[in-house]
C-alpha cells in the first residue's frame, strides 16, 4: 500500500458576511468579527482524510494569517489531520493572491515530499479561487480545479471530475498535483471526541519568513501587485414593490395584464 503525504491549504474567514467598513480608515472592521474555517476548505480536508484512510499516509494543514487562525487549524486537527502549520508574520501581511500563493508554495517546498495539495474551490470572503492554481504553477504541478468527484490514487495518478457551469470534464493528473474541491464532492466529517482529545496533544507549528527560503520582495505587501484603492458598501438600490393584492386569483389576473402590457407574455 502506498503512503500519501497530503497538504491541505485552509483559510479562516469572518463568520458574518454582514461586515462594516470603518468610516475613517475605510478598512473592513475585523476586530470583533469572529473567525471560522472557510466552508469549502472543510471539503478539502475531508477529501484528504478520505484518501489517507484508503492509502495510509499523513495530512498536514497549512494556513497563512494572524495568530488567531490557530483556532481554525485546531478544528482541522480535530477532524483528524495529523499536523498543522501556521505561516504567521507581519512580513506576510497585506498579501494578495500572488504573494499568498508564493509563500504557501515556499512552505510546501520546506515541508517536502508532498504528493497532493488540496484547496477549497475558493474562500467565501475574497472569493477568488486563484491561490490553488498559483501554487500549482509555482511548484510546476498539474492542477485539477473545481473537482466534484475523485477516485483513489492508482499507479501514481489520480482521476478526478471537474464540474463547470454546464459541463463536466474528467482530468487525470500525475502526482504530485494540486486539486481544488467543490462542496458537492463530499460531506465533511464532524470532529469526534477522540480526535478532539488527540488534537490537544498536538502543537500548531508557527513559521515566519525566517523559516522559509522566500524572496523578501515577493512576500506581503511588497510582493503584491494589486492595490485596493477604495472600499465601500454598495448603495442598496432598493426597489419599491407594487402589491398585486391579497387574493391569488386577482393577483394573477393583475400580473397577466402587466406581462401582456410589457410584451413579456
Amino acid at each position, binding site marked *: 500500500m502506498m503512503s500519501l503525504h497530503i497538504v491541505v491549504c485552509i483559510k479562516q474567514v469572518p463568520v458574518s*458576511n454582514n461586515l462594516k467598513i470603518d468610516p475613517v480608515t475605510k478598512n473592513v472592521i475585523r476586530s470583533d468579527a469572529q473567525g471560522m474555517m472557510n466552508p469549502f476548505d472543510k471539503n478539502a480536508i475531508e477529501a484528504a482524510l478520505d484518501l489517507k484512510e484508503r492509502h495510509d499516509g499523513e495530512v498536514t494543514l497549512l494556513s497563512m494569517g494572524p495568530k488567531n487562525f490557530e483556532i481554525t487549524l485546531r478544528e482541522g486537527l480535530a477532524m483528524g489531520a495529523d499536523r498543522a502549520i501556521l505561516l504567521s508574520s507581519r512580513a506576510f501581511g497585506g498579501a494578495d*493572491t*500572488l504573494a499568498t500563493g508564493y509563500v504557501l508554495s515556499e512552505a510546501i517546498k520546506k515541508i517536502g515530499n508532498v504528493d497532493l495539495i488540496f484547496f477549497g474551490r*475558493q474562500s467565501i*470572503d*475574497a*472569493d*477568488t*479561487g*486563484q491561490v*490553488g*492554481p*498559483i501554487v*500549482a*504553477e*509555482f511548484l510546476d*504541478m*498539474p*492542477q485539477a*480545479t*473545481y473537482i466534484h468527484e475523485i477516485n483513489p490514487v492508482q499507479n501514481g495518478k489520480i482521476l478526478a471530475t471537474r*464540474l*463547470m*457551469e*454546464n*459541463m463536466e*470534464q*474528467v*482530468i*487525470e*493528473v*500525475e502526482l504530485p*498535483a494540486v486539486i481544488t474541491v467543490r*462542496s*458537492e464532492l463530499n460531506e465533511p466529517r464532524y470532529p469526534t471526541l477522540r480526535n478532539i482529545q488527540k488534537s490537544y496533544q498536538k502543537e500548531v507549528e508557527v513559521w515566519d519568513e525566517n523559516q522559509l527560503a522566500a524572496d523578501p520582495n515577493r512576500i506581503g505587501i511588497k510582493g*503584491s*501587485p*494589486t*492595490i*485596493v*484603492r*477604495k*472600499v465601500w*458598501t*454598495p448603495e442598496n438600490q432598493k*426597489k419599491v*414593490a*407594487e*402589491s398585486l393584492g*391579497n387574493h*391569488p386569483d386577482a*393577483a*394573477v*389576473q393583475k*400580473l397577466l395584464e*402587466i*406581462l401582456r402590457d*410589457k410584451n*413579456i*407574455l
Partner: protein
Amino acid sequence: MIQKEIWIYAEIHAGTIHPVTYQLITKAKQIAGDKKVVVLLFTPKGYTLETLLQVYGPDEIIIVKNDHLKDAPDSLIADLIAQLNHQRKPNSILFGATVIGRSISARLQAKLLTGLTADCLDLSFEEDLLIQTKPSYGDNIMCEIVCPNHFPQMATVRPNIFVAEKEESKTVLLTEIKNLVFKANKKIVVHAEKPLLSKGDSIANASRVLAIGRGASDKKTLVLIDELAHKLGAKIGVTRPLTDLPQFSVEDQIGQSGNSIAPKLLINLGLHGAVQFTAGIEKAELVISVNKNEKAPIFDYSDYQFVGDAQAFVEAMLKVIQ
C-alpha cells in the same frame, strides 16, 4: 514597451463560444479609448469559431489552431498566452469569471508575476490604468482594485454583468499565429468535456426564470412549479439550500457561487432574499416575488409583490395560463 491592447480570452465549450466572451468584447470596446480590443482564440484545426467572434466587432482576433488544443489543460493555455504576452505585451487580459477562466488566469498570473482581480462587476480605464471593481464578503462590500506597476493587468469578469452587442459591419483583423511552442506535458490528461446529463440550457441564459426558495420546496408545490415552468417556457432556479434536494444541483443555483441570471421575467417563489441570492438577480428585468412574510428582503429587489402562499399563487397561475 506595453502595447495599447486589451486582450480577451475566448472561452470555448462543446464547439461554441461562451457568451461571457461576447459580453467582454462589447464592454472592452466601450472602455477602450485609444486601445485595441483583441480576442485570443485557441482551437483545434478544422474549427472556424472566429466567424462567431467577428460579428461582435473586436479590432483583431489572434488565432492559434493546433490539434493539441483539443481538450487542452489549463496549464497549456496559460503557457501559450504567456508566450503571446512576451511577443506583444498587452495592456490587459480579461477572462470570464467561470471555472475555466478563473483556473487559467490564475495559472497565467503566477507565470507573469502580475496582478489578477477576481469576479469583477465593472471595469474602466484611467489612461492606461485598469480600474477593477470587485465584490467582497458576499457582495456586501465593493472594492476598487488597481495593479499600477505590473503588466498585463488581469481580471476575471462575472458573466451576464455586461450586455453583448453585435457590430457586424466592422472590419476585423484576423491574425493566425503559428510560432508558439507546444510543450508536451505528460503529467496531465484532460478528457473531452461532456454536457451535464438531464440539463439543457443554463438558467444563466434563460429569458424566463422561476426561482424557488424554502417556502415553496415541498413536493406538491415543486410539481406544480414544474408544470408552470413548462407552460411558461421558463427555467427553474433555486437558492443554495435547495441544491441539497436530489432533483437540483449547483448548476440550478442562483446567486453568489451559483449563476448570475438576466431574464426578462423572474418570479421568486417562497424565497427570502439573502444577499447571496440577490447578488445573482441584479440583471433581471421584471421581478415578481411571492412570500408569506411581508418583511422578506426579496421584496426590496422586486417590481411586484404578492404577500401570501407560493402554492396558492402557482395554482392560480396554472388556472389561467395555457
